[in-house]
């Protein structure tokens, strides 16, 4: 450790000042705009206005709902996939993990665009449905919540799987056989052994997936269209169509608060679960 304070500040301050000037100051001003009263002074009327509109309420709830659904489904699939991957031989494990990570390198525009080909009116899904006689006319899957859900799940599932792989690898190797020998069924093994031991991984993965869904723009823009909005696409519309910068500021703060709240909430869940496992250890 070097002690020279002036030298340290000279090295660190340019980066900090840059981030503050082009990022923190403008964002703080933008957020404060939502609280400015027209005649001067401060008010929260922009927020009450925003939430009094039923369209905005629907968008807000849809964003929360899709975020929660994608996170839960990603966790369920993620456990199955991560479990399968850690039980592979080392060589195969590396290759499969590579295939899971690969989509993260591909432009999200390209990944989302693929779903237009698959879910569109003449897409593969509709062709299959009609060939199998499931439906007569092509179904409208694109520009719906279902399409956004599928797109978001595909976008963020790798983050959940990677978090769970490292969590499962750090789990003591004999925990599962031990629980099985002592008579636990697979459901109990998951709920009482695997979940408590991997909670940190699922919490990290869940936070990444949930905040990713909240702040995704490309997926709802391409797969939801201009009718099925999420908060990010609503923000874009408010600025580019309605020129309503106050509403944009309100949505911005909601997005930031929700991201932070998700982080804090999940951290709480992690520590609370930690306590219960410690207590059971104590009594056993």
């Amino acid at each position, binding site marked *: 450790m070097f002690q020279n304070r002036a030298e340290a500040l000279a090295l660190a301050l340019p*980066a900090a000042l840059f981030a503050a000037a082009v*990022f923190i100051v403008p964002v703080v001003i933008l957020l404060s705009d939502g609280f400015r009263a027209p005649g001067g002074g401060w008010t929260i009327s922009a927020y009450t206005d925003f939430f009094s509109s039923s369209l905005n309420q629907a968008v807000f709830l849809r964003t929360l709902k899709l975020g929660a659904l994608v996170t839960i489904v990603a966790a369920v699939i993620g456990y199955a996939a991560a479990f399968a991957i850690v039980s592979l031989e080392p060589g195969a494990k590396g290759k499969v993990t590579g295939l899971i990570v*690969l989509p993260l390198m591909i432009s999200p525009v390209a990944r989302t665009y693929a779903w237009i*080909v698959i879910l569109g009116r003449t897409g*593969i899904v509709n062709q299959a449905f009609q060939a199998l006689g499931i439906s007569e006319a092509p179904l409208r899957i694109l520009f719906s919540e279902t399409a956004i859900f599928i797109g978001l799940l595909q976008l963020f599932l790798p983050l959940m*799987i990677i978090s769970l792989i490292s969590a499962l690898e750090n789990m003591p190797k004999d925990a599962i056989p031990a629980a099985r020998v002592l008579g636990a069924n697979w459901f109990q093994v998951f709920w009482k052994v695997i979940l408590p031991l991997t909670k940190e991984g699922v919490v990290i993965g869940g936070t990444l997936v949930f905040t990713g869904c909240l702040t995704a*723009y490309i997926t709802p823009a391409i797969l939801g269209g201009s009718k099925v909005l999420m908060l990010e696409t609503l923000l874009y519309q408010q600025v580019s169509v309605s020129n309503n910068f106050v509403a944009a500021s309100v949505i911005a703060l909601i997005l*930031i608060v929700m991201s932070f709240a998700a982080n804090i909430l999940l951290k709480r869940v992690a520590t609370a679960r930690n306590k219960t496992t410690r207590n059971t250890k104590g009594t056993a």
Partner: protein
Amino acid sequence: MMARNLFIPITLGLVIAFLIGPFLIIVAASFSAGETLAFPPQGFSLRWIAKVFTVESFRDSFFMSLFLAIGGTLAALILGIPASYALSRYKLPGAETIRTIVSAPIIVPGIIVGLSLLRYIVVPFQVGITLALFLAHTALILPYAVRVVSASLGNLRSDIEEAAVLLGSSRLGAFFRVVLPNIRGGIMSAFILGFVTSFNQVPVSLFLSGPGVRTLPVDMIAYMEIVFDPSVAALSALLAFMSIGIVFIAERFLGFSRYV
């Protein structure tokens, strides 16, 4: 045990098909000979791949994105390497605050960063869109640069540079002759991570577009809203192969995943 033997291949098959399948469909659709985007592709031709190179706006926005990805990452490293060094080697007052400020752009949604830059930097100070995009992408990459370079500094024992100083080297000389060669891999990894992040970034650049100035992914979204031909599929496939190629080479030669 039979059920378990089937569970692994079926689960992995389905998950990989879900994650990779759409990308393969895009690649197949870009070789189509037909007029509209479709799968299975109608016939085989290279016309849409050839068309990508003739669309002028794609060419302009590609070079814009390339400039932002390279320039923004270099700028972020020039700011980020000294900051990481100060944070890991010095007793710095307010180190945690500085770390938070520098990594803040990763926490706030990109669309908000872009909008606030437009409203409070571009408009009041008459800053050009290109410069604003450059600033935004630099701020966006800075957290990654600091994180990856800090990780690689953390793996390097600090007593070797202290030894160099004791043996008469200046602090600066010790940094360039001892520290920098040892964290080269980390810096290259930060560069690649920053490049890919910037190149694929949409929300930050969304509001920062002017006449003739746009990043490639924003241009692609605008194009696909008007034209429904396979050229966006072809471009997507080309870009994907570019990203995969870069990351593959990086993994081969640098052990990229050690740092990220």
